């Protein structure tokens, strides 16, 4: 039997036309927190101005109020270019907005908003039950077709619910993420000889290297109530992550269908505050070429500050030091 590959041209899309902004509220409390311009808010142990900390899990509900705005200088009529001739964007298209949590697979109701009613003044509210979600919440918005188009239209979306524009999502971290030794970096006990830590597999371009710690340290490192353990992990973090960054850029043969590769890119994208696409682009440049090496040095510098800011490093160290004084 012969096999024929029929190429299907993707239809034209125009992403990021509508900007999503959001603010967080907690029920029965006069607290309001804006999601910053970088579109990510770490709510876990968020510190208010009066140094009171927010612990999202102590609340039953998180309320998210979302406002929408068209991209500057964008005209609604331009959307007609993405539709079959004669169709009116305001009649055929709508904006759909939802909040979800991939970890627990929870999804909010979906709000369907007419394009003509989108302006900065309208607020769309979501109540998020805390028992249904974990780690990260994502606020997503899409312009979609509401009806099938008549006839056949190559390169133009013509099916019901085809996405013709995806807005940049907002993310809210609500729990502590156990990244080291947890979801991203493989770490475990092993025979490390005289070494306390060893990273193996650094020359394997396909599989993530693994961090081993000495079997003799296992009984201590598997506990989470020892401040000395916490402080040694915190300080090792810089080297471990920088070594993984080097591996990812210079050694890894990237496979975008590999969930471990993707998780690692996500991690560096967050810590280095750099879009995933830029990191992927850097990995695919000439190995050890000038551009790649320069790119690595820039990311490495960003990583050094990113780890500290994302993990509230200064505050964690302060807590550890204070506990020793007591």
């Amino acid at each position, binding site marked *: 039997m012969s096999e024929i590959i029929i190429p299907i041209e993707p239809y034209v899309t125009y992403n990021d036309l509508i900007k999503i902004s959001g603010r967080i509220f907690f029920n029965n409390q006069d607290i309001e927190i804006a999601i910053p311009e970088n579109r990510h808010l770490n709510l876990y142990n968020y510190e208010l101005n009066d140094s009171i900390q927010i612990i999202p899990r102590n609340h039953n509900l998180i309320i998210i109020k979302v406002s929408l705005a068209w991209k500057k200088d964008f005209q609604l009529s331009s959307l007609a270019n993405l539709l079959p001739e004669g169709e009116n964007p305001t009649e055929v298209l709508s904006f759909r907005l939802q909040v979800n949590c991939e970890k627990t697979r929870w999804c909010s109701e979906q709000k369907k908003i007419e394009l003509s009613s989108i302006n900065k003044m309208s607020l769309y509210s979501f109540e998020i039950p805390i028992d249904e979600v974990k780690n990260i919440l994502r606020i997503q918005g899409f312009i979609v077709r509401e009806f099938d188009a008549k006839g056949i239209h190559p390169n133009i979306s013509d099916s019901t619910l*085809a996405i013709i524009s995806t807005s940049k999502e907002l993310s809210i971290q609500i729990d502590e993420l156990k990244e080291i030794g947890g979801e991203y970096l493989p770490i475990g006990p092993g025979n490390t000889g005289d070494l306390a830590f060893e990273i193996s597999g650094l020359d394997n371009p396909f599989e993530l290297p693994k961090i081993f710690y000495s079997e003799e340290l296992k009984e201590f490192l598997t506990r989470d109530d020892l401040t000395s353990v916490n402080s040694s992990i915190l300080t090792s973090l810089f080297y471990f992550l920088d070594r993984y960054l080097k591996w990812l850029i210079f050694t890894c043969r990237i496979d975008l269908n590999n969930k471990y590769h993707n998780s690692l890119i996500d991690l560096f994208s967050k810590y280095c505050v750099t879009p995933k696409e830029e990191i992927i682009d850097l990995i695919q440049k000439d190995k050890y070429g000038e551009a790649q090496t320069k790119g690595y040095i820039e990311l490495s510098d960003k990583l050094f500050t990113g780890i500290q800011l994302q993990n509230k490093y200064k505050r964690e160290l302060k807590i550890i030091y204070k506990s020793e004084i007591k």
Partner: protein
Amino acid sequence: MKKYLNGLDFFKNQLAPKREDPLTWNNFNTRDQNKLIDNIDSLQGISVQGELLSEEKEIILKIKSDIKDLKIVFQDTRPDRLDMDLAIIFHKNLKKLKWGRYHAEEFGMWRWLSINFFLTEAFWRWSEDDFNKKKFFESSRSCYQRLVGERNRRILPLWYFSIGERLYDTHFGYSLLEKLAEKCREKAAGGFGNLNNNLNDTKLLSPNEHVAKTMSKILLLGDKIGSNDEVADAFKRYNGFSRRLLNYGSEVIFEKEICLFSIKKAS
């Protein structure tokens, strides 16, 4: 509730039955719950945290007693045909503890619950058939895969609780699950197995579990009952539509584009 602090790899390395080593089969071919717990508690490096509260124990015993009753009422029915009934039992009872999706992610807790209370049920549902055919390795492996969880989401009580979370409705309660349970019991064929696999293994992010409910209804409650292949294909088709926002699509779209039945040739 108590939980194991050790992860999946710990249990895999120390407990997974190996074909070449029949001694490793024994843990899961025994029906002695206490012996199994003793063996697992004596594993080097095992670590348990937390307390089992009296109301939690009460609910667990209620689940076990409900399953016993189910086995009596449907004694001539194959255990796999009772999966939807089991999902109702686990979900309805565990909801009384106010467990939500946040708890579903506590795999160490589910594993502890499973290993410490549900050996009989895991053996009956997944292993007895092979055991009676003297396929001792296969029997032991299936029991391990569901009791300890070859994959986290396949741990027996979590597996059934998750099906309940997908198909329970705040307005209509368990009516969809009850209808599916009835169909599952009466039909010797039908893709209930693949439905349950997909309800557990795929993300299907949708408002009020619209996708899970709509697909279950169309594929397994209509005039035609979807086969295992048809159910699997429908989920593949749904997940393939990455450029359409179908997670709140109408039933018509699901009928026309996703939940398709193959046309059988007349003989």
